[in-house]
């Protein structure tokens, strides 16, 4: 057999390869339009359907492909590449796939050009039709629209895969041997982006009816199939809502996560030991320090203070849970504290009144909805006179966490007119968020704590309330006699009941301090977490 290709065969082969390249581009681009493709079979050959396949020719795409090829054909070292990329409405773009039509030097001289090569090229196009629906970019392209569009770019020369990121995968569509070399069609696709995009777009409101504007140049004139029919309002909206959703989520997270008692404790303690922090929360915690120190200075002090604070507020504010106040009231609490947070609601005052007769149980009262807490408190108050402060501290810890959960929500969303409004709803979740019951181990816990602490700090009224509470209250704290702390609790309160006005009294400043608090909270929480075991043991002694 003549090893040299006859001129006719050579011409045919060149023509086949050229049209194969053009059809390949058409198949790829059409598969990324975002719509289902449908062409009809025809039993009568029309003569214009290359490779016996009904593949439409989009003029712009053909034009682009011809421009890229510039009269050349894929050869060794010169590959035709179709790059599919994604571009978001914000202008970010990323490469998704690179389809490569390459030619290597491995020749198959024996093969018949006009028949076998042609049929195999046809088979390869069918494979391409199948594979283009299988790569991750297909599903992305079907969902495109306002959020993002799919674009294509054709270039000729060296394959550039660097834009696909790490870990891209390759799928080989097929090969066809020819007397001039072996044609290989393959696709390198990014896998990370596919997942990222899916996640990203799932977080935004559902994208329905998104259409694709996938043409690099002006779309195809009869672009009815390519232009969106159901336009989402705007990409900006999505963009705008997106961050806000995140923000609110963060807020919710911080507000709902349970702050571990240890964390609360540490925060308070830390605040206490430092030079008087301008943060409200620190100040608020101060009064509790006495209680905290009675048990475990480092650990509980903070918690106590925190617990005491929320307890007070919760008691005052939780009009929806009167029982919560009542129960603690019996235990006795810190009447003055309770009465202090007069946010202006009569209910608050009433609450406080109820709590007034309470002594240390005030803190137990803080244990809002959990009867368990109540029992704990009562038990503790009944039997363990020796370590009432333990109970108190425990309760404080719990309360702190519980309140920590809610405050964020309340702080950010509820009006801050009522200083302790944020604590009101907290009571509902106190049980769930009880850090003593479920000592938080995950870092998630930290955020709620942070959030809550921040919210405490941020609500200036809270500060004021606490301040007022301490001022107005003249009670006999149940744990005033503390072995560990040489200071009398009452003295302690009086000493620290007039903190300097915090800059975080206003909402704006509160927001700022919240951010600062949030920043500092991780370290505080880390310290708290270290002592989780202690607190766990502590809780168990109470149960």
């Amino acid at each position, binding site marked *: 057999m003549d090893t040299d290709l006859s001129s006719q065969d050579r011409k045919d082969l060149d023509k086949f390869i050229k049209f194969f390249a053009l059809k390949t581009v058409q198949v790829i681009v059409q598969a990324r339009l975002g719509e*289902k*493709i*449908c*062409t*009809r*079979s*025809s*039993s*009568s*050959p*029309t003569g214009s*359907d290359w490779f*016996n*396949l*009904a593949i439409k020719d989009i003029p712009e795409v053909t034009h682009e492909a011809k421009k890229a090829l510039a009269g050349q054909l894929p050869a060794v070292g010169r590959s035709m590449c179709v790059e599919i990329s994604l571009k978001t409405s914000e202008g970010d773009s990323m490469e998704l796939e690179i389809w490569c039509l390459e030619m290597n030097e491995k020749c198959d001289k024996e093969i018949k050009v006009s*028949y076998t090569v042609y049929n*195999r090229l046809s*088979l*390869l196009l*069918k*494979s391409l*039709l*199948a*594979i283009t*629906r*299988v*790569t991750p970019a*297909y*599903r992305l392209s*079907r969902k495109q629209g306002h959020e993002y569009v799919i674009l294509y770019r054709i270039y000729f020369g060296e394959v550039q895969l660097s834009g696909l990121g790490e870990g891209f995968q390759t*799928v*080989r*569509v*097929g*090969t*066809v041997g020819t007397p001039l070399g072996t044609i290989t069609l393959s696709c390198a696709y990014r896998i990370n982006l596919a997942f990222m995009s899916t996640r990203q777009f799932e977080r935004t409101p559902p994208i329905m009816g998104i259409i694709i504007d996938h043409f690099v140049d002006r779309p195809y004139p009869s672009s009815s199939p390519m232009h969106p029919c159901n336009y989402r309002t705007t990409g900006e909206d999505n963009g705008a809502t997106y961050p806000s959703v995140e923000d609110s989520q963060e807020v919710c997270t911080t507000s709902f996560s349970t702050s571990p008692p240890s964390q609360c404790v540490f925060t308070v303690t830390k605040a206490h030991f430092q030079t008087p922090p301008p943060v409200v929360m620190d100040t608020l915690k101060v009064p509790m320090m006495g209680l905290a120190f009675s048990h475990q200075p480092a650990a509980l002090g903070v918690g106590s203070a925190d617990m005491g604070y929320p307890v007070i507020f919760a008691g005052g504010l939780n009009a929806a849970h009167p029982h919560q106040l009542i129960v603690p009231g019996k235990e006795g609490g810190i009447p003055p504290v309770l009465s202090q947070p007069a946010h202006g609601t009569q209910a608050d005052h009433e609450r406080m009144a109820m709590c007034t007769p309470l002594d240390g149980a005030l803190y137990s009262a803080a244990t809002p909805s959990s009867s368990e807490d109540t029992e704990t408190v009562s038990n503790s108050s009944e039997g363990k006179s020796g370590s009432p402060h333990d109970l108190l501290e425990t309760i404080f810890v719990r309360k702190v966490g519980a309140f920590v959960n809610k405050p964020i929500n309340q702080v950010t969303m509820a009006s801050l007119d009522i200083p302790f409004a944020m604590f009101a709803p907290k009571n509902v979740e106190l049980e769930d968020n009880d850090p003593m019951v479920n000592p938080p181990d995950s870092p998630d816990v930290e955020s709620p704590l942070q959030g809550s602490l921040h919210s405490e700090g941020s609500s200036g009224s809270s500060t004021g309330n606490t301040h007022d509470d301490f001022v107005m209250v003249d009670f006999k704290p149940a744990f005033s006699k503390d072995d560990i702390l040489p200071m009398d609790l009452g003295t302690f309160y009086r000493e620290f009941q007039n903190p300097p006005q915090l800059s975080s009294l206003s909402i704006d400043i509160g927001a700022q301090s919240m951010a600062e608090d949030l920043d500092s909270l991780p370290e505080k929480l880390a310290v708290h977490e270290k002592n989780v075991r202690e607190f766990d043991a502590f809780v168990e002694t109470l149960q």
Partner: protein
Amino acid sequence: MNCRSEVLEVSVEGRQIEEAMLAVLHTVLLHRSTGKFHYKKEGTYSIGTVGTQDVDCDFIDFTYARVSSEELDRALRKAVGEFKDALRNSGSDGIGQISLEFYQKKKSRWPFSDECIPWEVWTIKVNVVNLVSEQERQICREKVGEKLCEKLINIVEVMNRHEYLPKMPTQSEVDNVFDTSLKDVQPYLYKISYQITDSLGSSVTTTMRRLIKDTLAL
């Protein structure tokens, strides 16, 4: 000659059986179908055009391209429907397999009937899973979609090995190689059969051969 045999395995939920089978079978047939032959004088022939269309699956996150031929689609749906029914009726442990066999007819002399010589067999083993929660179903949707993507890549890989294919027949022989009964496309002669394994996994309790094209009805 040796018959090429390819086996694919999928685990699907009951309602996904049809779509998964159709996706695989249509993809195979897309590669094994040509346009209608129009023989001209002097032994030459021209080939018609094969159109394609995309099919979205309702129960699987998957889309596949199939030949645009309603007749072919109907035939496959019928076979897959029967397979699905047999699978569902077999019991809770739905394990079965459906086979797509490409064969050539070889005329034998009288009184022997024509032989059917398979040259390629695609077997899809199906394992039906039962899911209870909606979340599981959603995960199954995606997972089966990904699995089908892998299967399709496998199919394409086999197709592109360019192994044995019956050589193009003359006009008189075309019915021994191709199924010429469809009016718009011309797949290679094929038949679909299935087997259901009973729950014990022991011997096949039901074997049915469903002849899509009766080789004897010429």
